[in-house]
């Protein structure tokens, strides 16, 4: 268990794609369930500061999903379609309802490594480098908070 490496990320220089890879102590079947069973999914998808409410969930090829993240009365909804659901892969769309024109096409692969371990590979394709960078920058709440923390530190130290 302690041998699990952290997620690796790659922003492709040639296509507006973000790839993330991570290995898990679980079978492909378990990983598949954690992505398709709404009760399990809600337990891990949102930042811990947020509550995730699944509003629509039909994890079949051609089905759709929608969930809402809430914190302090603020609601942010995300939705998409399950394009293809197979034991070893999920193809789906992902959009933030605040910006419905931006749709990411996501592919997830569950690769069996044996010994109850699985490699999860995800790929998100967006329509331009600009929107990819917006996604990357939109490590949103964290990002802005960090920005503020730095700014405040500078102000406190009189470094501005």
């Amino acid at each position, binding site marked *: 268990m302690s041998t699990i490496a952290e997620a690796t990320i790659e922003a492709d220089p040639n296509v507006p794609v973000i790839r993330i890879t991570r290995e*898990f102590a679980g079978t492909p079947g378990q990983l598949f369930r954690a992505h398709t069973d709404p009760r399990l999914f809600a337990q891990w998808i949102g930042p811990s500061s947020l509550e995730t409410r699944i509003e629509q969930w039909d994890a079949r090829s051609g089905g759709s999903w929608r969930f809402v993240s809430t914190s302090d009365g603020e609601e942010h909804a995300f939705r998409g379609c399950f394009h293809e659901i197979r034991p070893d892969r999920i193809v789906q769309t992902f959009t933030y309802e605040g910006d419905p024109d931006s749709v990411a096409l996501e592919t997830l692969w569950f690769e069996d490594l044996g010994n109850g371990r699985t490699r999860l590979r995800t790929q998100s394709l967006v329509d331009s480098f600009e929107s990819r960078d917006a996604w990357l920058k939109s*490590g*949103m*709440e964290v990002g*802005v908070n960090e920005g*503020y923390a730095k700014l*405040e530190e*500078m102000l406190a130290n009189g470094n501005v």
Partner: protein
Amino acid sequence: MESNLSLRTRKAAVLYWNLVVAMAARRHAERADLRLLPGVPAAHLANHDQPHLFVHTQRLSRTFNATVDTSGIGGVTLVSTNGLKDQSGEVSVAVDELSRIFAALADPTRRDIVTRLAAGDATVNQLAEPYQISLQAVYKHLKVLEDAGVVSRPPGPQPRPVRLAAEVFDLMDKWIERYRRQAEERYRRLDEVLAQLNETETSNDEQKGSTA
């Protein structure tokens, strides 16, 4: 002293830039709804229709207010500098540099140029290729970016490539790392879910004496 100041100014510019680009990204991402995401109680954005972003943070009993004009020609106006009065000289220097950076990034073509340069150096001709504007107009955009310190054209044989300033790369790396860290946090929660699944399946197996 002089170099200290310029280093600080530069640092401040990069930090503020980080801040405002994040804000701009957010503004872009939340076109229809400018409420902030949770976790940013101290920050406020003005109405999207107005050519200003209003940035406000108040902690450590200090207040920093900046009105950022993103209309194209604009820059930064500090509308209030409570707690910064002692360093007002430095602030105005920083603001001057910031104004140029913000103004440089206020234009969509220039933002696009910056984004493309993030993938690697390019000549002016290469940069101009996808745009329906004259080469001269591209040079004009580059001049604005150069003056703001966002890009440089290191001396050398022609055609000299245009290069993104190192700070910009640092920022990109930070964004990517932050994004990665968020994914990692999410996957640690997934680790826990899988551990629970493993536990229940093991105990089920013991009860049923069969595999799941």
